[in-house]
């Protein structure tokens, strides 16, 4: 905001300085839209928090600190962190290859990167199970192990970092790199000192999105992980089990715990985004 105000000194009115721009919805439209958003999103979440708060503090502590719940939390957050890190590295390399390299079939590969966004999560789980499950044609069976959690999460989060880094890499001024090279920098040094610092904000926001997605993932994990308590059971699956067993209070407490983690990540993401501007 401060930067915008500096760019447009007072007296020079632009559309951004006015209270309301042209083409804005009237009070009725605004009211209906906000009411709709509240009914769809906020009211259900308020009921979730209310349910969680029905539990006494000691009950809450029991729900989040019992063996399977603690194991699920550690697995969920740990796997999400690993997945975010792998994505940060491999996603950046993928984006680089897609922007700077040229090979036969590149447009097709580029389009297929988005497939994990388009494919239903339960199908993603089954797709992985077909090739890396008990009937694997290549003899690799990871089903019902923690490797399956990692594999499924890597599948569903594949596009985030690639799609965050790609546009930045396309816009990146190549003259800086050429200058570095002409001054005798090796390609490794050019990458570390010129390219990487420019890409870092995009890599971080892509990885944070992948983390948030991995923390809440459900559909791709139910079939291939077997949801074994203390071993392959993640938070979302544990919450689902509590719902099925008619324990809405326990499910609500665990949901709020998971939600708070997601909100922290979202806030961190906002701060990173603000730094970029």
């Amino acid at each position, binding site marked *: 905001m401060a930067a915008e105000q500096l760019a447009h000194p007072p007296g020079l009115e632009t559309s951004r300085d006015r209270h309301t721009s042209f083409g804005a919805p009237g009070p009725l439209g605004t009211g209906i839209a906000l009411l709709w958003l509240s009914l769809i999103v906020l009211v259900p979440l308020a009921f979730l928090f209310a349910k969680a708060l029905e539990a006494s503090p000691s009950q809450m502590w029991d729900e989040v600190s019992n063996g399977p719940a603690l194991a699920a939390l550690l697995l969920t957050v740990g796997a999400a962190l690993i997945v975010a890190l792998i994505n940060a590295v491999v996603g950046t390399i993928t984006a680089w290859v897609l922007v700077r390299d040229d090979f036969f079939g590149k447009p097709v590969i580029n389009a*297929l990167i988005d497939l994990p966004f388009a494919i239903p*999560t339960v199908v993603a789980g089954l797709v992985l199970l*077909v090739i890396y499950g008990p009937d694997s044609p290549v003899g690799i069976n990871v089903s019902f192990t923690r490797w399956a959690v990692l594999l499924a999460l890597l599948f569903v989060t594949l596009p985030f970092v690639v799609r965050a880094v790609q546009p930045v890499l396309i816009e990146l001024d190549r003259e800086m790199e050429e200058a570095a090279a002409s001054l005798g920098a090796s390609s490794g040094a050019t990458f570390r000192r010129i390219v990487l610092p420019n890409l870092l904000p995009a890599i971080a926001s892509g990885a944070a999105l992948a983390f948030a997605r991995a923390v809440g993932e459900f*559909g791709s994990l139910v079939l291939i992980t077997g949801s074994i308590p203390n071993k392959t059971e993640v938070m979302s699956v544990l919450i689902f089990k509590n719902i099925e067993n008619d324990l809405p209070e326990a499910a609500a407490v665990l949901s709020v715990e998971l939600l708070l983690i997601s909100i922290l990540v979202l806030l961190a993401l906002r701060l990173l985004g603000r730094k970029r501007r």
Partner: protein
Amino acid sequence: MIVPSWARLSLRTFVLIYLAILLLAPVGLIFYRTFEPGLGAVWDSITTPEAKSAFWLTIKITLIAVPLNTIFGVLLALILERKQFRGKALLNTIIDLPFAISPVVIGLSLLLVYSINEPVGGWLADRGIRVMFSMPGMVLATMFVIVPFVVREVAPVLDEVGDEQEQAAATLGASGWQSFWRITLPSIRWGVAYGVVLSTARAIGEFGAVSVVSGKLVGKTQTLTLLVGERYGNFDVHGAYVASGLLALIALVTLLAMTLINPRREHA
């Protein structure tokens, strides 16, 4: 950056192998497994009464949730981009919430409002309105999940095109509606189209939230994704492959639509 050709080649090979192992081989194999027993078996599997009812329920939910979400998505994008008000950051965060919330938690939240064991759901049930374990609940779950898609595609386009044209229209005496239909909507149409494609794919593919609120009544509240889970659970593995193959096909069509719309969206 001048990259030696051996490095370029090894990076390319690494990326292609990674994508092949994680993405291409698995998706390719599911199509192979689907059609392995022959087209007749596939046809039988997608024309069972359960499969047909799952297909039509998925279509119905999508046809209600996506248009409503598109209208409100455009409205919210206009509010975010064309109005100045306190709490804009808060509104932005609320719109992004569905991205950050587990689908299971979304389903549970709706269950806690509309289940007949809860006050609101009980009150509605006394008046003969059933939301949980029936279509309204599944539509609500789908709408919650897809809230951000249209807003996040349209808002940047609105920011890009600015409001000079609407300003000109207003000085020439156009009403708010005229200016929306003739100027705003045409300039954001590819952004809207992209958002509609993304939210349709997500609506068809939603599993976690819908599986909590559906009650999984076979032939009544079963969508295509729930059918995949149910068939796999009942050891009808080929049936699960076929339903998955169908959904993967829909995903590929979605990708094609995205690829076709993307360049137009960027040069709007």
